[in-house]
């Protein structure tokens, strides 16, 4: 069976949803004739026409706002941010208008705002961001951040079908780096808000998401081989709603928790996860909850600087070894 890339999986997921449901339509910059900056929507214009694949002006606030209005009227818009870094231009629309719509006005706003995020690609400060923390703090927005080919396809479908607004983060370092065979025929649509155990282990748990799932798995394999340390890796997949039960379950199993994320440390998700574990599983811990994150600086461009700032596999190995020995 043919191998599918992460990027192709997202493409397939959207394609199948557009085939299945004619309320689904796409809007974004250069997504039509050009097929998107990363070619995620290549071929969509030809297949679905320019009424359902809309090349927009460079107006992120209008893209998100228009998606919201259409969603109120029963449509299922999927908005692309050319790079997720530009979602900041739609911050007001997302946090004030979209996030509060159901609560304050009983309005349903089933939109997906998706786009390439993340570093490790020499993109510099404005083409590498991980914006999840900025939205994690706002009640009313769901946040999905897949790490595998299978989840990329399944979760984009779940996001489109969900009745709430979803920010869907696609790590561009994964776009063409990972491949998998996808089941044909019966489609798999996992629920939002459910984490996944990416690797079973006994001695220590790593809770992570996005590109660092792969770096954590690499670290786990090294620790297993070199030190005989058995690491469990939990891939959150959905950041909001957060699968607290899965986090607590793995802590109760291994009694040690390392949280890994690519986003910067201060105000990052690791802090919230730490607090939840503290509230629900404190007595189960045999060591401090530790975190491996990016340093608290804007992401610089030079390879040497970017490598220093972002968490690397060696960092996870070091941190996990330290914690395992605690």
């Amino acid at each position, binding site marked *: 069976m043919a191998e599918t890339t992460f990027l192709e999986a997202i493409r397939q997921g959207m394609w199948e949803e557009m085939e299945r449901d004619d309320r689904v339509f796409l809007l974004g910059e250069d997504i039509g004739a050009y097929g998107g900056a990363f070619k995620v929507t290549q071929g969509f214009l030809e297949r679905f026409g320019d009424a359902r694949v809309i090349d927009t002006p460079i107006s992120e606030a209008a893209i998100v706002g228009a998606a919201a209005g259409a969603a109120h009227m029963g449509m299922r818009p999927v908005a692309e941010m050319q790079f997720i870094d530009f979602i900041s231009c739609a911050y007001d629309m997302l946090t004030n208008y979209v996030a509060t719509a159901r609560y304050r006005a009983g309005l349903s706003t089933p939109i997906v705002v998706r786009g390439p995020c993340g570093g490790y690609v020499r993109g510099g400060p404005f083409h590498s961001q991980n914006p999840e923390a900025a939205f994690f703090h706002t009640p009313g927005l769901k946040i999905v951040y897949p790490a595998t080919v299978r989840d990329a396809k399944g979760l984009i479908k779940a996001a489109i079908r969900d009745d709430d607004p979803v920010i869907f983060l696609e790590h561009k370092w994964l776009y063409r780096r990972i491949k998998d065979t996808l089941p044909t025929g019966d489609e798999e649509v996992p629920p939002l808000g459910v984490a996944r155990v990416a690797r079973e282990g006994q001695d220590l748990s790593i809770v992570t998401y996005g590109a660092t799932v792969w770096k954590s798995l690499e670290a786990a394999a090294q620790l297993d081989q070199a030190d005989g340390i058995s690491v469990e890796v939990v891939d959150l997949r959905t950041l909001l709603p957060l699968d607290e039960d899965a986090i607590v379950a793995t802590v109760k199993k291994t009694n040690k928790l390392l949280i890994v994320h690519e986003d910067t440390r201060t105000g990052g998700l690791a802090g919230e996860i730490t607090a939840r574990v503290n509230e629900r599983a404190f007595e189960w811990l045999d060591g401090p909850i530790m975190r491996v994150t990016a*340093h608290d600086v804007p992401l610089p461009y*030079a390879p040497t600087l970017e490598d220093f700032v972002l968490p690397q596999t060696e960092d996870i190995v070091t941190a996990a070894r330290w914690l395992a020995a605690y």
Partner: protein
Amino acid sequence: MWRRFALINRLPAANFHPPLNLVMTAHPASTRAAAIPAGLSSEQLLEMYGFLRLTRTLEERLAALYRQTKVIGGLFRSLGQEGESVASAYALRRGPQPDVLSPLIRNLGAMLVMGAKPIEILRQYMAKETGPTRGREMNVHFNDLTLGYLGQISHLGDMVPVMAGITLTFKMRGEPRVGLVYVGDGATSTGAFHEGLNFAAVQRCPLVMIGEYNGYAYSTPPARQFAVRDLAEKARGYGIPAVTVDGNDVLAVYEATKLAVDRARVGKGVQFIEVKTYRRTGHAEHDDQSYVPPGEMEHWAASNDPVDRFVRALRDNDWVPARALDEVDTRVRDEVDRATDACLDDPLPAGESALGTVFAQPPSAEPLWYRAVTGPSPSHGAPNG
């Protein structure tokens, strides 16, 4: 004269397909022995030519380095648009207390006019420790406010409000300085553009905006970006005097900008100049331009290259000595060669230097705990103490 530029607005539909043949030649090359226009001297014409040639030669060098994977990240070029960048910046005051411009990725020429050095550009693109941002930022994103340029960030439109603030300060302090900000046809769709332009107009800031109508925003043509024909119409909606000029006519752009700068300097508020030009490369080097109709680029290259047109005007009118242009070409080639040789082997910045200067105080961010763990031996208690 202001009205003369405005004439161009009455030319037929500005639809880019087929290519707009918008050559209102303010300075027909065929007029032999015409006087040099716009109060320019022969030396100044040669200096402008030098900046045009330098922009093109330097970008060609960058493209070669990009293909050799020496340029890290993307490469953006201004091929076909060098004229408007150089000519508009050339209308500003340089030297002590200079005017200040804010360039975009396609305004390398404007930065060179203000005094940015080729070696800085090369180092910046190659993320060298010795570069102007010491590897932190990419391409032409860097400043030198003493020379008079403020580097952009990627988020389009953001520089417009910032330049409103810079020029507001000129006004508050009574300094006879002017700001100039570039904005692409695509970037005029952002909220920041509209808020910034309106703010500056209301405050009567000494700001000149150059709207670059170059036919594309990435792959998107103007017709999918805005429903007006000319960018100048947008500015007029904010009560700003606006003209449209042939952006590939170096002298026309210079003349229009000079007039706008002079008006802004004497308190006449924001001035807008739309330059009609054409982006002859992809959005960046990776872009195959499959969306460009066949023949369009070739048409512009063959019949409407700003450097060619400027050279023709200089030669046909005997405005500069015949040999002088060749001498400039040689000097520019040498300069770019020397700059390349001088920095190609410069080191990349040391990783730890990433932590400095997030704030004035504290001067450095902390390295995270896991970087301080030495060896596998465990200690009880947190590693940071």
